[in-house]
């Protein structure tokens, strides 16, 4: 994947592409989180997956970019749409919304979010030296923070922040609602702490004081829940 959906960590795609090409392997890139937020060169990969609603479009349309000459059989058979590669009537309204969102996306503007994110993370770490920003040393999306608070379950953090008017997710938003520790953080070697991280995403229109408001709510949440955990 280009950018991880829980940590925002950006993988070294150019180097990965070179390695794949040297060994004759096809490279597929899940660019769902990266699209519209960082500059991407789709030519690096043989195939690239995109999702309209992650860009701000309506749910119901995504896209698979294919290198010319790459042939693949349809997963959904019948109808002959998309030159035989996906059967089914195309959801035109969702596709039009996807297109509008793609045109409106401004990766260079998203970079401005990095300053807000850095302030948010610095505020959290100043308030709680035991907190960890996962993947802090790696290149990351400008709008994503994965903040780990040892000893406090992600679910408890999400609920407490929600009550304070701050919407974050435990791990991937897609699987929210099920109580499970993050496989991503477990794969990064975080062990039991993998269940204690929240994902904070700054929207494209985040207000200038968003970091300070978040840090206030987060600190109050931490004071209350850490005391209870202790």
């Amino acid at each position, binding site marked *: 994947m280009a950018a991880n959906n829980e940590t925002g960590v950006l993988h070294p795609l150019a180097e990965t592409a070179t390695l794949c090409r040297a060994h004759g392997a096809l490279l597929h890139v899940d660019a769902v989180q990266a699209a519209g937020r960082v500059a991407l060169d789709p030519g690096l990969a043989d195939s690239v997956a995109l999702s309209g609603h992650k860009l701000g479009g309506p749910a*119901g349309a995504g896209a698979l970019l294919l290198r010319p000459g790459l042939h693949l059989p349809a*997963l*959904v*058979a*019948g*109808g*002959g749409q998309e030159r035989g590669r996906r*059967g*089914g*009537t195309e*959801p035109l309204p969702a596709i039009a919304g996807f297109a509008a969102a793609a045109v409106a996306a401004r990766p260079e503007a998203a970079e401005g979010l990095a300053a807000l994110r850095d302030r948010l993370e610095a505020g959290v770490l100043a308030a709680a030296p035991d907190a960890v920003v996962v993947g802090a040393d790696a290149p990351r999306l400008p709008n994503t923070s994965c903040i780990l608070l040892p000893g406090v379950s992600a679910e408890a953090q999400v609920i407490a922040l929600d009550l304070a008017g701050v919407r974050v997710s435990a791990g991937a938003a897609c699987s929210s609602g099920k109580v499970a520790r993050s496989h991503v953080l477990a794969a990064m070697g975080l062990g039991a702490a993998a269940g204690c991280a929240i994902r904070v995403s700054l929207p494209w229109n985040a207000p200038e004081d968003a970091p300070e408001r978040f840090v206030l709510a987060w600190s109050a949440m931490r004071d209350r829940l850490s005391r209870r955990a202790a």
Partner: protein
Amino acid sequence: VFTSGATEANNIAIKGAARFAASQGDGRRRVVTLATEHKCVLESVRDLAAEGFEPVVLPVGADGLLDLDALREALAAAPTLLVSVMAVNNEIGVVQDLAAVGALAKEAGRLFHTDAAQAAGRCRSTWRP
């Protein structure tokens, strides 16, 4: 299950039922449908041949209707897992007798799937899942 439409729904129902049965050790391999079904049903049934299933595509009469005796014969010839018959044809509008087809298809624990994409909202069904 919400889907993108009937094409996806037919794919899931047909391939899904066949793959799940096979994963549970079900020995039935026959999957029966009609020559006049929508391409997504025909191609889903035909795709299953590559996975060891036995697609049977029954002809229809000059009136576009399935001959129930032909269905009886196909079901008697080999253990059948699934029968897929559309409610209303998308090119000619012919309405199959789903009550009769369904009753026959569902005997002996067989699965019955119907593509009701053309029928829904346009005619009263005599058959309920």
